[in-house]
Every structure is written in structure tokens, then in C-alpha cells.
């Protein structure tokens, strides 16, 4: 059952809320964990003195010192493998790739060592990898990618893609608590654009549970990350009741919530910013076809970036990333089917 509220925080008393941007919420969650657990360390390029390329760890080094907030050499493999080694020795490292794109340099470690270590050698690797991802601001082919589907394909890794400030904080906490390597895809285009009420205290948002972003009866949009907002805008422009399900995490992913929504509306659009072929949307569409075929009143539709690198020029990037208009068109086709 997808829950409109997101967290498992105690409900004994009303939480104190504060307005935070998506970026501030990540920062707040991370700071909370570092204050309560000295095993948590941050390591990455420019995360210390500079506070991170996007300032998520601004002020952290002053508070926690240079051996808990480690400015690392430009060495993605050393950052990731170093985090894993430290985790095997009992720390809870939170490593940062300056941009999610650079995780390709650390692919080998994540996929070869970290993902398989628990299953193969019985030794869990509790690391978190923060990955500023996504496009929308002319970052070009190397500062705009959404590589989550590639990692969701690797058994042993978890992939988290929050869309709201509340989930960003609750999921960074969950990721640090989790005994597995967790890839935390934080969408750069949401960092300062999206603000929301966030509980000030610590809470954990469970990994693997979807969030019902908007309830509707006629058609379901299954999505995550920045596309949640694209779907929301599009939903306002169509004459139908649109349900938006924010998966929040794609490995593990909430199959039950997806199937429940599909059974209710009978029409479904799977929407993501990553490229289409081999994108995680394919897995979702296949599961719907296998498990809810009889409930469908229209073919499952997918909307994703085309199979092409992320372009630089704004006009090209607009043609690349799924836009509100594209979603509106597809929703209308589904409604009229």
C-alpha cells in the first residue's frame, strides 16, 4: 500500500517542521547522522574546505574536522575503494562523486568489489555513495547523466532517487543505516528549485517503498526524481484524474505499489529522465505486462530520454529531456485509447 506520508518517524508528538530546499534536506540528514554516529565520515573531491561542488557539506569540516570530512585526490576509484575498506573496518563512509557522471571511473570497484562482497565473501560493505545527477541546465554529456538504471542491474547495489526534500533527508538517513552499498542519486535540478516542509528531527524513510505523489483514477504515471514534477505539471494540463507514483528507490522497487496503481487506473505511463533502451522503465513495463495484463485498458507507455548522449545547447537539451508537453501528449493518447 503506497502511503502519502513518507516516513516511519515516531508519531508520539507533532514534529517540528522547517522549510528546506532539497539540498538543505540532504545536508541536514547527513549532519544529523554525523552528529549522532562518529563512524560516519564524508569523503570526496572538494567536500571539505569548499563544502562540496554544490555546497551540500558546507561547514562540515569546521564542525567535524579534516579526518571526518576528507578532501580526497581526484581519484574516484580510491574514493570508492577507500570507502569500502574503511567500511569493512567499521566506519560508515559517505562518499561523494562530484557529478554522478564520474561514477564511471569507479564502476569497477562498485560492481566488482562492493556489490559482490556480501554474497561472495560474507563481508557486507556499508557505504553510501552520493551522486549529483540529472540535467536541465546545460551541463552537457558529462555533467547531466542519470546512470541509475545501470547500477540497478547489478545485484548487491541499492539505488535511491528521492524527489522531495522530506524524502531526501529520510532516505539519506536510511542509506547510512543500511548495511549495503547504497547509491544515492540526488537530482541537481531539484537542489535549490524544490523546497518543502521537513521534520527537524531524525527519521528514516524506508528504502523500497513508493510514495503516492498525487492520487488519481484515470491514468497512472510511474516515475522518480525530477520527472515527478514534470508529471505533476502535465497532470494539471489534461482533463483527467492522474495518479502519480514516485518510486523513490528503484532497487529495490515497490512492485506492489505499482501494480496496485495500475489495477486501479488500468492505464499507465512509465516516465524517466534516463535513456530509453535498457532504462529501468523497461523492467517496470515488463513487470506490469506479466502481472497486470488483464487489468490494462491500453498498452503500457514509456517516455524517456532518447538513446543519445545528453546534449549541451539548451534547445538540444530540451529536445532530449522529457518535457511537460511530451507527457501531456502521451497522457492524452492514453486517456483517449
Amino acid at each position, binding site marked *: 500500500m503506497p502511503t502519502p506520508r513518507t516516513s516511519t518517524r515516531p508519531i508520539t508528538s507533532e514534529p517540528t517542521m522547517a522549510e528546506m530546499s532539497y539540498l538543505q534536506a540532504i545536508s541536514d540528514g547527513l549532519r544529523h547522522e554525523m552528529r549522532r554516529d562518529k563512524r560516519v565520515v564524508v569523503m570526496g573531491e572538494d567536500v571539505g574546505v569548499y563544502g562540496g561542488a554544490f555546497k551540500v557539506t558546507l561547514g562540515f569540516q569546521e564542525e567535524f574536522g579534516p579526518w571526518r570530512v576528507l578532501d580526497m585526490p581526484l581519484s574516484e576509484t*580510491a574514493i570508492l575503494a577507500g570507502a569500502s575498506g574503511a567500511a569493512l573496518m567499521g566506519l560508515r563512509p559517505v562518499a561523494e562523486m562530484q557529478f554522478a557522471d564520474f561514477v564511471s571511473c569507479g564502476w569497477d570497484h562498485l560492481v566488482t568489489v562492493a556489490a559482490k562482497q556480501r554474497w561472495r565473501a560474507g563481508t557486507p560493505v556499508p557505504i553510501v555513495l552520493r551522486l549529483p545527477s540529472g540535467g536541465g541546465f546545460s551541463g552537457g554529456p558529462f555533467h547531466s547523466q542519470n546512470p541509475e538504471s545501470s547500477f540497478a542491474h547489478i545485484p548487491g547495489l541499492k539505488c535511491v532517487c528521492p524527489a522531495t526534500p522530506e524524502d531526501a533527508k529520510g532516505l539519506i538517513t536510511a542509506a547510512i543505516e543500511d548495511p549495503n552499498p547504497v547509491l544515492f542519486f540526488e537530482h541537481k535540478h531539484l537542489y535549490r528549485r524544490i523546497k518543502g516542509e521537513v521534520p527537524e528531527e531524525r527519521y528514516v524513510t524506508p528504502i523500497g517503498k513508493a510514495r503516492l505523489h498525487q492520487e488519481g483514477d484515470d491514468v497512472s504515471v510511474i516515475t522518480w526524481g525530477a520527472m515527478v514534477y514534470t508529471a505533476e505539471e502535465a497532470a494539471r494540463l489534461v482533463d483527467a484524474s492522474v495518479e502519480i507514483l514516485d518510486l523513490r528507490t528503484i532497487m529495490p522497487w515497490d512492485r506492489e505499489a505499482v501494480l496496485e496503481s495500475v489495477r486501479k487506473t488500468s492505464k499507465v505511463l512509465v516516465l524517466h529522465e534516463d535513456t530509453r533502451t535498457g532504462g529501468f522503465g523497461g523492467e517496470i513495463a515488463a513487470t506490469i505486462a506479466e502481472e497486470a495484463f488483464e487489468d490494462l485498458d491500453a498498452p503500457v507507455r514509456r517516455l524517456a530520454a532518447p538513446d543519445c548522449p545528453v546534449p549541451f545547447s539548451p534547445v538540444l537539451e530540451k529536445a532530449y529531456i522529457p518535457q511537460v508537453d511530451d507527457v501531456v501528449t502521451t497522457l492524452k493518447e492514453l486517456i483517449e485509447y
Partner: protein
Amino acid sequence: MRAVATARVAEPTGSLEDVRESGLDREDLLQIYRNMLTTRGVEERGHILYRQGKIPGSFYTGRGNEAAAVGVAMAMGPDDVGAPLHRDMGVHITRGVEPWRIFAQYMGRADGPARGRDGNVHMADLRLGLLSMVSHLPAMLPVAVGCALAFRIREERRVAVAWSGEGAMARGDAHEGMNLAGVRRLPVVFICDNNQWAYSTPTHLEYAVEHLADRAQAYGFDGVVVDGTDVLAVYREAKRAIEKAREGGGPTLIECQTLRMEGHAVHDDAFYVPKELFERWAERDPIERYRAWLRDHGTLDDETEEEITAGVKRLLGEALERAEASPLPDPSTLLEGVYADPEDLDTPHHK
């Protein structure tokens, strides 16, 4: 133009007094011998098992590397950790992995350290301070650096030992790991097993420096070249480097020079290695060399030698029997542990 050699070339084993000064008593010296014999014995019997068709997949040995592996492992402290490779069976033996579990590992049985999920030397017992290797060499080298980072952050007097072959020293992992270790002056010792052949590729096609240990200077720490067939020289250099790291003196890169006395794996007859090279290095067989030293220095009399040889033979015979009795892994457990549960972190090292 070849680069200028900067690494120190270690002296061979000195007098008995020198050896005693490095902290080894008679029992230690005999234990080293026992460990080297056990190491070779495990691999020889493994080879027989392979020919009998009892080992699936491929089979790798470290013949010729017994002194390098045992010498380094003897120098490690009980709380130190290491990430040895496929030529370093001597490290597992020295740290106390029971041979029957190694045979079970070879045969893909449930009692092997990897419980049939991974094969050959891809095994380790973290309770004994060892990290399990992977095929992508030297992927565990920067992981060992990460262990050292944890020791440094917590200000513990522990050291990590990271292995690489000379072939894998060409990989970026080696560079990134050693650079980070140098920058942060981490308590880690790098061991390069230079056995002269990366599968069929000779050293002149692998690197252009005189010694791989010369690279240490570029990372801001010391490099040492040692004869990897001289177990006491290896021990002395490893001990010195490990204790230096423990005292905050930063990393050392030790290059142990050996020859891989067999093929890359048992399917490979190593036709590309000149016969004369094998003959020359066979004269420096690490076990034979050490045995001669022990006898020359009055540490190994006939009775003791017989006792050790018989003890190793008995140990391995019993180990084989026990391993063959070990059950095959249950296919219904295949999916267990792909993801860890919180209670999996309830271990001495994760706490």
C-alpha cells in the same frame, strides 16, 4: 632513457644473531619452515585434485612465491589486515586458515571460506584479518588503503598490507591507492609480488622503470627491493615497514622478486618462459634455500625436520579427507545474502 633507480636494494639474510634481533626465536624460525612446506603442500595436492577432475574451473598456484608470502605474513601483527592475491597462499596458511577449508574451497564445497560461491584463491577469513581477492587485479589494493584510512581516522595502531603483482601495477587502482596512501601518510605497506610474468607478458612489456619499487618515491614514500626467495630478508623488510607504518611513518612499497615457477594457471605450460630461466631460479627454490640455511645454522636437525615433514604430511592428508567429506552447497541457498541484513554487521570488524 631508463629512469634512475631509487629504491633501496635489501641485503640478504645475515647471521643468526641478526635474525634473532629481528624478533624471531627458534620456534618462529621452524614455524616459518612449517608454513612454507604447508603452503607448497596445499598447492601440490590441489594440483592433484585438479587432475583428478575434483576441482571445477581453473587452478592457480604460487610455486616460487612461498617465501615472499610467508615472510610478509609472519611480520604482520594479530590486528593487522591484509589483502593477499593468488600467489600468496602462504599468507592464508600463516594467518591460520585451516588447510581442509582451502581444499573444500578448491572443490566448491560448502565449508570453503567462499562456500562454493567463488573459487580457487578467491577466499579469505576476515576474522583472521584477511580480505578476499577478486579477479580484477589489484582491485583490493585501494580497499586495503581504505582499511588503513579507518585505522588512521580512529588513531589505532594497526597496519594494512596491500598486495599487487607486477602486472597489475600497470592498473590505475594501484596508482590511485598508492597516491592516496602517500598523500595521507596512511599505515599501509604495499607488497609487489614481481614474478616476472603477467600471464605470458614479460616485464619489459609491463613497465619501464628499473624496479617497480622505484615508483614509491613518486608517491612520497620509501621503496625497497628484496629477494623474494629469501624468506628471512622478506620478513626483515616487511617487519621494518609494518612497524614504521604503525609508528606513523607512512607507507612503504616492497618489491619481492621471484619467478613464477609454473604457468599462469595449470592449463598453461609457460612455453614462453626460457628454460634456462626456470633452471636458474630452481636453484634458488625458496623452501630448499631456507632449509639449507636452517641446517647450516643448527636450527633444523634430522629429528626436527622429520617431525615437521611428517606433521605437514599428516595435516594435509587429514585435511583432504575432511574436505572431501564436506557437503556441496545447497542450490536453494543461492540467493541468500545478495543483500546484507543489519545483523550481518554484527561482527568484530564492522562494529
